[in-house]
C-alpha cells in the first residue's frame, strides 16, 4: 500500500521529519519499505508553475523553439527542443540556479545560464526526468489546466510517498485514515476524521430501491444510498493526483469517489447505474451451480455456490466484494447512482478470488476481514463527496440491512497479565494511556467485581477495541499493542531463565552429522541438491529398491523438473556431476550428499529415508611438478567406505552384487554383520550417457543411514599397547586368479597370534603358472603375554600354508 504524506496530513499533524516518521511506523509494525520524494530537490522559489504564452521558431535552429513563459507578472524566454507543447500549456519552469536532474547523465546538476545557438535561455522548462519524478525525457511535463501560474511547483505537487509492507492482520492499515490513526498514536496527536455531513432531499431511499440478503452468513451488512442527477465527468485534479499517487487510475468522478473512499477508509464501495438495475431491487445471494457472469474485465466466469452475487431483478450485477459486472457499470450517460457499501464474509471472498484467479483492490481488503461497522462511515463519506463533486442530490435516508451485528467484545485484564507476557513493570495507567491513544475505550474496574472503581488496588482494565481493529481480541493482543507503541526496544531485556530441559539425544541425527564429517575428511565435497525431480530424470536410473508404484507427486509443481519427490540421491548427484563437467569446467568431481528420499506410504506421510551417497571421478592425485595424475579407481572408493565405516566403529563386509545402474563385476554390496547397508561400484556407461556425463569411469556409492543406524556400533575400547615384540614375516601364496583376496586373508587371520596382515603385492605373469596369481602378504605375529619363539611362528606359518593348500589349492611361492 502506498500512502501520500500530503493526504495523510489531512487527518493528522505531522511535524517529524519523514525519515523519522518512516522509522517510527516501521518499528511499531507498519513497515515502510520505501520512501519516494516527489520534488524533494525542488527549490521553492526557483521551480515554478509556468504558462506558455508564445511559441516562436528559434532564429538559428530548425529543431529548436523559443517559448515565452509567464510565471505571473514576469515573462521569460527559454530555448526548447521538445515538440509536445503548445501555447497555453502549463509547464514546470526552472530558473537559472535551480537544482535539477541532468536529462542525459541522470546526475543532479544546477541549472546554468546558457546561450543556445545565439539565444540566451532564461531558465528552462522541464521533463519528468529533469524534475527527478520519472524516467520520461522525451517531452516537457504538461501540467493540468488548473495549475496556478507562478506558484511554487513544490507547493503545487510536491509530496512524499511511503511504500508500506503491511501484514495481513491489519486491514485497517490498507487505508490512509488507518495510517493516520497509527501516526497519531505513535506521535501523540489527534486524528481529524473527515466530515460525513450532507443534506438529503426528495424521495426516501426506500421508495427508490430495496435490498434483500438471502445469504446473511456471507453478507452480514449491506448499506446503500441513492444519488440522483449526477454529472459524470472528470474528478477534480486533487483527487486524481491522490489516486495516481497511490497507484490507481482515474476513470470518472463517480468511480474515482468510490476508489478514493476505499483508499481513505479501507472499505471497498461499488457504484451502480441506478437506472440499469432491473426493478431497483438488490438481491444478495449465493451463485447457483453452473451459473455464469461476465465481470467488468469482460471475462465470463463460471460460478459455484461458494461465490456470492449481487443481483437485481434481472440477474447478477456484481461478484460480491470482488468485481462489478458489465451490465450495471457507471457510464458517461449515467444520471442516477446507487452506492453499495457492504460487508462480506472474508472466507467466501478469499475462495472466490482464489478460484477465479481474480484479485482486486476490493477483494484484497475484504478477504482480510473488515469490520461490519465500517460500511456506514464509508457510505456517508462517498455520498457526501458525490454531492460535492458530481452535483447530485441525495435521496432521504440510507438502506442498512445489518443482520450480522455483534456487540463489541471487551477484554478484561490486569497490569500483571500484561507484565507477565512482556516481562515489564508497567502500571495500569500507562497501559491505559497507550490504548486510549489507539482509540480503545478503557474502563477501570475492581478486580473480579466488574464495579467501576479506579482507586482500588489490583484494578483491572476493561477495554473495547475501536471498530476498525478487528484483530485485537485477547490480552496477548493488548500486550502487543502496548509494546509496539511503547517501543520494543524500550522494554526490558533479560537472559533466558528457568530450567534447562532434560537431555534427549537424537542419535540418528548425530550419526548423520558424523557421516558428513567423515566423508569430508575423506576428501569429498558436500553438495545439496533439490528434493524434487522429474520422471524423466528418475527414468534415467533403475528403480530404487523398496519403491513400488509412482514416486510422490507434487500437485502444483513450478515446472516439470519439480513434479516428483526424489526416491534416490543418484539422479541429483549425476546431474550435478554433468553440470560441473559441462558448464563449470570441473575435471575431478568428488562429491557427496546426505539427505532424505521420499518413499510413498499409502494414506500416510511418506517414509523419509536418510541416505548418504557420493560420486567419485577424475583424479585422486592431481598432476603436479613431480608426479603424474592418478585416476580414481574402484579401490579408492572402497577405501572411502572403509574409512567411513571405521569412523563409525563398524566393520564392513563386501560381496559382489548386481545393481541396474552399476557395472556387473565392478559392484559391491556393503554389509555390516550380514545386513546390507549400501552399495558401490562403477556407474554403467549408459547411465552416464543418459545424464550427459563424461565417459570416464565414474564411481558411485550409496548408503542407507537408517540401516547403518540399526546396526550395533562397537564401542571403542582401549587395548593395551603390546609389551612383547612383533615378528614380521612375508608370505607369498599362489592361487587361482579367480580366488578372492578376502578368502586368503580370512585363512591367514584365523590364528589369534596373527595380529595383522597386509597384502603388498599381486603378481600374474610368467613366473607363476597360467591361470594363477601370487598374493604376497606381510604378516605380523604377536602374543600379548610373551615373546614369540621362532618355532612358534614357524608352526603357525606352516598351519596357514597347509590350510591355504587344503581350502584354496594354494601353494607357497618359491
Amino acid at each position, binding site marked *: 500500500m502506498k500512502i501520500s504524506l500530503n493526504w495523510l496530513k489531512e487527518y493528522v499533524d505531522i511535524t517529524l521529519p519523514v525519515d523519522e516518521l518512516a522509522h517510527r511506523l*516501521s*518499528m*511499531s*509494525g507498519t*513497515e515502510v519499505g520505501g520512501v519516494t520524494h516527489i520534488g524533494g530537490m525542488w527549490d521553492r522559489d526557483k521551480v515554478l508553475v509556468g504558462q506558455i504564452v508564445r511559441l516562436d521558431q528559434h532564429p538559428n535552429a530548425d529543431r529548436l523553439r523559443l517559448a515565452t513563459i509567464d510565471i505571473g507578472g514576469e515573462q521569460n524566454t527559454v530555448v526548447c527542443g521538445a515538440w509536445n507543447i503548445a501555447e497555453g500549456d502549463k509547464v514546470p519552469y526552472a530558473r537559472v540556479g535551480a537544482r535539477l536532474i541532468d536529462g542525459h547523465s541522470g546526475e543532479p546538476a544546477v541549472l546554468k545560464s546558457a546561450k543556445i545557438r545565439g539565444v540566451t535561455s532564461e531558465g528552462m522548462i522541464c521533463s519528468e526526468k529533469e524534475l527527478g519524478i520519472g524516467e520520461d525525457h522525451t517531452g516537457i511535463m504538461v501540467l493540468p489546466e488548473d495549475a496556478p501560474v507562478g506558484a511554487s511547483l513544490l507547493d503545487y505537487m510536491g509530496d512524499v510517498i511511503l511504500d508500506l509492507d503491511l501484514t495481513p*492482520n*491489519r486491514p485497517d492499515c490498507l487505508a490512509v485514515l488507518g495510517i493516520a490513526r497509527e501516526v497519531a498514536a505513535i506521535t501523540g496527536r489527534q486524528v481529524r476524521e473527515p466530515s460525513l455531513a450532507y443534506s438529503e432531499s426528495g424521495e426516501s431511499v426506500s421508495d427508490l430501491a430495496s435490498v434483500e440478503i438471502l445469504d446473511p452468513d456471507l453478507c452480514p451488512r449491506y448499506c446503500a444510498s441513492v444519488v440522483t442527477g449526477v454529472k459524470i465527468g472528470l474528478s477534480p485534479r486533487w483527487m486524481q493526483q491522490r489516486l495516481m499517487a497511490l497507484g490507481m487510475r482515474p476513470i470518472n468522478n463517480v468511480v474515482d469517489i468510490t476508489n478514493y473512499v476505499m483508499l481513505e477508509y479501507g472499505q471497498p464501495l461499488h457504484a451502480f447505474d441506478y437506472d440499469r438495475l432491473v426493478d431497483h431491487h438488490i438481491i444478495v445471494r449465493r451463485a447457483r451451480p453452473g451459473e455464469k457472469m461476465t465481470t467488468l474485465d469482460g471475462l465470463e466466469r463460471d460460478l459455484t455456490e461458494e461465490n456470492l452475487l449481487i443481483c437485481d431483478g434481472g440477474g447478477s450485477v456484481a461478484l460480491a466484494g470482488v468485481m462489478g459486472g458489465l451490465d450495471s457499470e457507471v457510464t458517461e450517460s449515467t444520471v442516477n447512482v446507487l452506492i453499495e457499501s457492504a460487508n462480506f464474509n472474508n472466507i467466501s471472498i*478469499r475462495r472466490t478470488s482464489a478460484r477465479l484467479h481474480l484479485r482486486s483492490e476490493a477483494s484484497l481488503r475484504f478477504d482480510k476481514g473488515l469490520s461490519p461497522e465500517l460500511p456506514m462511515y464509508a457510505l456517508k463519506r462517498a455520498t457526501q463527496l458525490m454531492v460535492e463533486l458530481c452535483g447530485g442530490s441525495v435521496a432521504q435516508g440510507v438502506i442498512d440491512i445489518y443482520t450480522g451485528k455483534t456487540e463489541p467484545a471487551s477484554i478484561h485484564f490486569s497490569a500483571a497479565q500484561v507484565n507477565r*507476557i*512482556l*516481562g*515489564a513493570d508497567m502500571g495500569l495507567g500507562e497501559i491505559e494511556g497507550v490504548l486510549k491513544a489507539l482509540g480503545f475505550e478503557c474502563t477501570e474496574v475492581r478486580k473480579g467485581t466488574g464495579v467501576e472503581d479506579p482507586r482500588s488496588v489490583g484494578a483491572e482494565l476493561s477495554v473495547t477495541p475501536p471498530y476498525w481493529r478487528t484483530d485485537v481480541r*485477547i490480552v*496477548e493482543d493488548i*500486550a*502487543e499493542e502496548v509494546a*509496539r507503541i511503547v517501543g*520494543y*526496544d524500550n*522494554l526490558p*531485556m*533479560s*537472559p*533466558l*531463565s*528457568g*530450567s*534447562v*530441559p532434560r537431555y*534427549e539425544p*537424537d542419535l540418528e*541425527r548425530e550419526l548423520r*552429522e558424523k557421516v*558428513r564429517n567423515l566423508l569430508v*575428511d575423506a*576428501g569429498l*565435497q*558436500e*553438495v*545439496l*541438491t*533439490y*528434493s524434487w525431480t522429474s520422471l524423466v530424470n528418475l527414468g534415467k536410473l533403475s528403480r530404487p529398491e523398496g519403491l513400488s508404484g509412482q514416486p*510422490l507427486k*507434487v*500437485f*502444483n509443481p*513450478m515446472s516439470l523438473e*519439480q513434479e516428483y*519427490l526424489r526416491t534416490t540421491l543418484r539422479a541429483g548427484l549425476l546431474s550435478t556431476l554433468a*553440470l*560441473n563437467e559441462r558448464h*563449470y569446467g*570441473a575435471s575431478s*568431481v568428488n562429491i557427496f550428499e546426505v539427505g532424505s528420499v*521420499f518413499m510413498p506410504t499409502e494414506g500416510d*506421510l511418506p517414509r*523419509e529415508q536418510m541416505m548418504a551417497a557420493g560420486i567419485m571421478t577424475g583424479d*585422486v592425485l592431481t598432476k*603436479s611438478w613431480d608426479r603424474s595424475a592418478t585416476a580414481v579407481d574402484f579401490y579408492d572408493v572402497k577405501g572411502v567406505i572403509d574409512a567411513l565405516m571405521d569412523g563409525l566403529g563398524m566393520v564392513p563386509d563386501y560381496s559382489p552384487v548386481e545393481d541396474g545402474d552399476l557395472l556387473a563385476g565392478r559392484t559391491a554390496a556393503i554389509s555390516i554383520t550380514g545386513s546390507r547397508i549400501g552399495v558401490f561400484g562403477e556407474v554403467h556407461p549408459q547411465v552416464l550417457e543418459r545424464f550427459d556425463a563424461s565417459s570416464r569411469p565414474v564411481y558411485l556409492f550409496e548408503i542407507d543411514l537408517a540401516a547403518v543406524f540399526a546396526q550395533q556400533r562397537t564401542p571403542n575400547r582401549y587395548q593395551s599397547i603390546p609389551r612383547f615384540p612383533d615378528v614380521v614375516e612375508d608370505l607369498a601364496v599362489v592361487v587361482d586368479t579367480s580366488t578372492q583376496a578376502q578368502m586368503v586373508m580370512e585363512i591367514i587371520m584365523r590364528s589369534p597370534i596373527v595380529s595383522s596382515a597386509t597384502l603388498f603385492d599381486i603378481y600374474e605373469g610368467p613366473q607363476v603358472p597360467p591361470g594363477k596369481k601370487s598374493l604376497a602378504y606381510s604378516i605380523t605375529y604377536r602374543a600379548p603375554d610373551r615373546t614369540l619363539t621362532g618355532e612358534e611362528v614357524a608352526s603357525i606359518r606352516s598351519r596357514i600354508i597347509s590350510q591355504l593348500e587344503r581350502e584354496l589349492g594354494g601353494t607357497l611361492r618359491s
Partner: protein
Amino acid sequence: MTQDTSVDEIQSQALGALGAIDDIRKLDEWRVAYLGRSGRLTSVLRGLGALPPEARREVGQRANMVKSVLEKALEEKEEVLRQAELQRSIEGGKLDITLPGRRPNRGRLHPTTQVVREICDAFVAMGFQIVEGPEVEWDYYNFEALNIPKDHPARDMWDTIWIDPPSESEKPMLLRTHTSPMQIRVMEKTQPPVRVVVPGKVYRYEATDATHESQFYQVEGLAVDTNITFAELKGTLYEFARRIFGTERKVRFRCDYFPFVEPGVEMAIDCFACGGRGCRICSNSGWIEIMGAGMVHPEVLRHVNYDPEIYTGFAFGLGPERIAMLKYGIDDIRLFYSNDLRFLYQF
C-alpha cells in the same frame, strides 16, 4: 743417520701428501701407505732390528714420534674433511621452498550445513536441543495447529507446494513451508520446559531469483516454560546475535506479524559491514533483518494441551542461507543449490 733422515723424510712426505688430500675416502689410502702394516713408517719400525742398538733406540724413538704426529694429523684432517663434506651435503640439499606442497585432498561441508551448525551450536550452548521433523507434512502441523486455519488471510504469507491429491482433500499433505510444525510435534510429545531448535529444509512455491529460492533451510526455535517473557525472548536472541555476528553487535526489535505468535517480532542487527552508517548490504538503513520471532500464541499452546494460563514461551525462525549470504557477502541465493564446485570450494 740415513735412517733418521728417511724417517723425517717420511714425515714430510706424508704430511705433504695428507695436505693434498681433499676427499675423505682417500684418507684410508694414505693411512695404508704410511701407517698401514706394510706402510712406510711401519717398514722403518720393522727394520729396526737390523740396526745397531744405539741407532735402533734413536730411530725407534724418532719413528714413534713421527707415527704419533702422522696419526694426529690424520685425525685432524679427517675432521676437517668431514666438516667440509657435511657442509657440501647441506649445501647440495638446498630446496626450492617455493615449489608447491602436496596437499591432501580436502572436502568441505556445504556452506549451508556449516551455517546451520553454527546457528544450532549457539542455541545448544544456551540449553536448547536439536530436533528434526518430516519435510513432507500434514496441513494440520504446517498451518492449522499453528493458528493458521484454512482460508486464513495469513496463508498468503507462505506460497505452498502441495502433494497430490491437493488441498481440497480431507487431510492435505504439503512440503513444509517452515520448520515451525515441529513446535507442535515437540510439544505434543513432551511437557515443559521445552527448549528446541529445529533445522531443516523448507519449500516454497516461488519463482527463483537472486534473493528467492524454492528450497532452502530454516532454523526454528521454541522455548516454553512457566515464566518465559518477552524480555527473555529479546535477551536470548540478542545473545544469539552476539555469538554469530560478534559480541559488539547491537540489536533492534520491531513489531511484526506471524499468526502463531503474539506479540510478533522482527529482529535486526546493526550492519557489521558499515557499522550502522548505511551501505549496500544493509540497503543504507544501517540495520539488517535476520529473523522473525514472537511470544507463542495461546491458541498454539491450546492445540497441544498446554495451559496458556500457566505456560508462556517464545518462538523464532531464521534462514541459514540468508545468514551465510550476509557473512560471506554472497549476492545470489541460487548459488547454494546450483552446486557449482567453484562456489562450494570457497567455504
